[in-house]
Structure formats: structure tokens, C-alpha cells
């Protein structure tokens, strides 16, 4: 088991979770009722895919971010 602190970027609210091996980003977001969010270790790291296992990519006690989906672009500009 690993402990994680999920910081909701917009509010700064911190949600503590404990995850088992094989827990995916989607599992965490679903459990925290953050369905429209994406998880990452910060803006300098890529987002975790929903089906991606988070367990092996985080350290025990690490802080990760949940932010809402956004894309830079205009209609003719692919995101």
C-alpha cells in the first residue's frame, strides 16, 4: 500500500488516499468523484492515462495534482 495526497489544483483541497498495486488513475479519480479531472505529478510531467497504473510511478507519501481538462487551440488548430 502507498499513501498519496491528491491536490485538487483549483481549490488546493487535499484528498488523502491509500492505493494498492495496480490502482489506475481512473480508479483514483472515480473514488474521489473527480470524473472531469486528470491526474499528474505536476505540469512538467505528463497526465496519467485513465487505465494507467499509478502505483509504480509514485512514491509513498507523494503529492499529485488533479486538474481539469483543457486544450490550447482554436477550431482549426488541433490540440
Amino acid at each position, binding site marked *: 500500500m502507498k499513501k498519496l495526497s491528491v491536490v485538487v489544483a483549483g481549490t488546493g483541497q487535499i484528498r488523502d488516499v491509500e492505493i494498492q498495486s495496480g490502482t489506475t488513475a481512473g480508479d483514483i479519480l472515480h473514488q474521489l468523484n473527480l470524473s472531469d479531472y486528470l491526474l499528474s505529478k505536476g505540469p512538467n510531467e505528463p497526465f496519467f492515462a485513465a487505465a494507467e497504473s499509478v502505483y509504480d510511478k509514485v512514491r509513498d507519501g507523494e503529492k499529485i495534482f488533479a486538474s481539469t481538462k483543457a486544450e*490550447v487551440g482554436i477550431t482549426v488548430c488541433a490540440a
Partner: protein
Amino acid sequence: MRRIKDLGTRHAPKSIRELLSRVVRGHAPTTQVERRPLAYWQEHGWIHSGNRYTGSYHTPYGAFQGWIEEQRSGHADFYLYNPSNEIRSHSHWTCFQHRGSDWYLVHMAKQPKDVSSGIMTIERLIKEAYET
């Protein structure tokens, strides 16, 4: 025949004496430090005044000056000052609209639901511009 030579006594190093005295005294009560829930924009030094946020987009390649205007509807416009050549060469450069005095509006095809998520999106874009 004596195999051991007595060299006398000396004081243990201070760090060891402190450790031993702590064991004898016992630990002091644990102080729980409260975490401050800070939004990403606050944690990264943005200043909020009225419907405006001013600060910088932080990336491994530097901090880039910006400001954000939040509309009553919740929609936010994100601005970047004087984008670097790397940003101007990025495939998303067409999404930057010049608004005068070297300020550029970063157009969002999908709006973030909060200012912090928008800041993180632009920081990601800038990082990507420097790495491609």
C-alpha cells in the same frame, strides 16, 4: 603478555551524547503540522485582485510573465507576455492572438474549469515548445 593497551577515556562526540540523552529522556510529544490547502495559482505566487490574476507560468525553462482575466461566467482568458522564439515556433503558435504591447491571448479550444488548471495547461504547452 598483555594484548590490550589502555589508552584512557575521552568524551563521546556531541551527536552521540545528544542521542543517548534523548533515549533516556524519551521523545517530546509529536507536533502535528497542519497542511495549508493552497490552490495551484496561490502556491505558484500568482496574485489575485478583482477579476485579474497576475504572475508567471513556471517551467523548467524559465518563468514566463502572464495575467489572467476571469469573466463573471467563469470563463477565463489567459495572456502571455512576449512569447519566446521556441513558443513562436511551436505548432500551437496559431492559437496565440496578439493583443498589443507584446501581450498574447492564449486561445483555449477546451476551457479549463478553473484558473489553476489553465495555468498548468499553458506551462505544459511552454515546456512542450522547448522540447520539440
